[in-house]
């Protein structure tokens, strides 16, 4: 489903200087699988999520991102979104004045139009929103409020998962979705993510800690250090990291 080959990427700082962050990533996530990317701070985890979703200022200098057989390395963010990429942001942004439901309806319809499908009717959209909100314990009031404005950290993360449920993407990237969540909130979020597991959907879970993975049970765990994947293994790798830390991988990469 997702095949990343020898991916190199750089970001530009405010002075226009380029800095290489990803230094040759090879990664394949087949449909139906959940892969975790773990790594120390500064390894390039968030950069990878932005490079995959096409954020401006994150430039692919070498290599390829192939999604369902198609090279999307140069595609605009909204084009990738319509093809099925969804990023649950580490820091979801506030959109003042735009209510959650308005935003999602516009987004969903934009994706449907881009794929040449019919737009969703207002009643069907509302029905879908109510069902998904109930799964995550999201109140009606929250759906009417501007996106993320005045939301707590936990509410923001729940709203990210709610958006994923609404947009039903083919490929989910969760960037530090567990950060800022207490145990109860994490369970709710993890249940939401688990509900999204499907044979035709891939997931990449980016995290610093193992605790979210306890709930999600990834098929493969990759360790990212200094812009490269230095080790891949089963779920036991996450537990090993939790016990021993990243020291030996940071050392090796440097």
């Amino acid at each position: 489903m997702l095949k990343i080959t020898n991916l190199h990427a750089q970001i530009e700082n405010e002075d226009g200087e380029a800095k290489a962050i990803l230094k040759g990533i090879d990664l394949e996530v087949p449909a139906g699988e959940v892969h975790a990317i773990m790594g120390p701070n500064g390894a390039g985890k968030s950069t990878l999520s932005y490079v995959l979703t096409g954020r401006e200022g994150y430039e692919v200098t070498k290599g390829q991102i192939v999604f369902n057989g198609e090279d999307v390395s140069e595609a605009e963010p909204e084009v990738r979104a319509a093809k099925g990429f969804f990023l649950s942001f580490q820091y979801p942004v506030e959109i003042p004045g735009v209510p959650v439901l308005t935003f999602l309806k516009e987004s969903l319809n934009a994706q449907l139009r881009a794929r040449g499908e019919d737009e969703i009717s207002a009643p069907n959209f509302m029905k879908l929103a109510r069902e998904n909100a109930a799964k995550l314990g999201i109140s009606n009031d929250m759906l009417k409020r501007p996106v993320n404005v005045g939301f707590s950290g936990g509410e923001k993360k729940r709203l990210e998962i709610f958006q994923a449920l609404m947009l039903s993407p083919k490929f989910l990237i969760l960037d530090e979705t567990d950060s800022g969540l207490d145990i109860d909130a994490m369970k709710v979020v993890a249940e939401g993510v688990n509900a999204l597991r499907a044979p035709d959907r891939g997931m990449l879970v980016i995290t610093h800690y193992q605790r979210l993975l306890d709930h999600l049970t990834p098929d493969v765990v990759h360790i990212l250090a200094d812009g490269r994947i230095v080790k891949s293994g089963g779920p036991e790798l996450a537990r090993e990291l939790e016990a021993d830390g990243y020291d030996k991988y940071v050392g090796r990469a440097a």
Partner: protein
Amino acid sequence: MTKLMTATPLEMALLKDLPRQDPVRQRLLDHGMPHRRVEEWKYSDLRRLSGPVESQGKISVKSARTLMSVPVAQKHSPSFMAALALSLGDEGLAFAVAAEAQETLSLELSATAGRAHKVLRFELGKGAKLTLHEIYRAHAGAFANILIQIVLGEGAELIRVIEQDDAPDALLVVTSDIELSPKARLHQTTLGAGAKLARLETHVTHQGEGAEADINGAYLIAAERHLDQTTFVRHCGPHGVTREIFKGAARAHGKGVFQGKILVEQGAQKTDAQMQHRAMLLDERAEIDVKPELEIYADDVACAHGNAMGHLDEDVLFYMRQRGLSEAEARTLLTESFLLDPLERIPDEALRTRLLGQLQTRLRGQS
């Protein structure tokens, strides 16, 4: 003020239009048309922006209701442009609402190419209510100068909604001179787009005690357009309330101006006046100039003003695009939600819906 060296072609034409004995003619001769060295016109140089306007134009007023033709009332004028309209305005048009009566009036004021002046007068009797909807359409080559005189009797209520969207090479000045009697209520909202130069200048005087004025506006300025919204609110009576909320956005090569002055006279104790302007520059080649002023001579008042300027946030745009919206769609949605507030406050439901629809159309038509 120094005498002008040479009159512009428009000034020459206006000097010919004005009667010899008219003091306005002398003012024009001495000072010329308003320009940037005149404090009130600092950001909107009417003199420089007005090219030659050779012919006489016409301002027609379309309405389902009949307006009375009245002689132009030579009362005091709040500005030079108002005085010019009083001197050169053809017939005056008036509409009166009797005490305790309720009326709705919709007007379309269109100006053809050429020089034209018009004076309209609205009088609301005690406890009267009027919903007034004005649409301004100045066509290519127009220099339209309009004075609107409004008097609200005691406890009268006026809901006034103004739509301005003129040709890119038209000049439009609308000066509103509004007097509020005790307990009168004004609720004014403008939706502006600009022109070569469009200036909506609103003077409100709280004559008596306990009057209320909401003066709101939303504006979206397209390329090569200039919109100036200037408000001057004078509190003379005590317990008066003024609320101003303006929100605007300008695209590349568009220019917006907001000037708001609130003057509280000595006798206007317990005045509660607040003025807020927020704007968004949609491109780095857009310009918005702001001048808020409070001048207070009473010692027991609550007055405040605020101003904020910003850009569309790149983080927000990326977030929205990641969910599937194109950059243009994301920008439109953000700009629309930013500008909604003043329009959502329109008390009349039909007009509120209409203006919100207008905003949508304007946003989608220009992106």
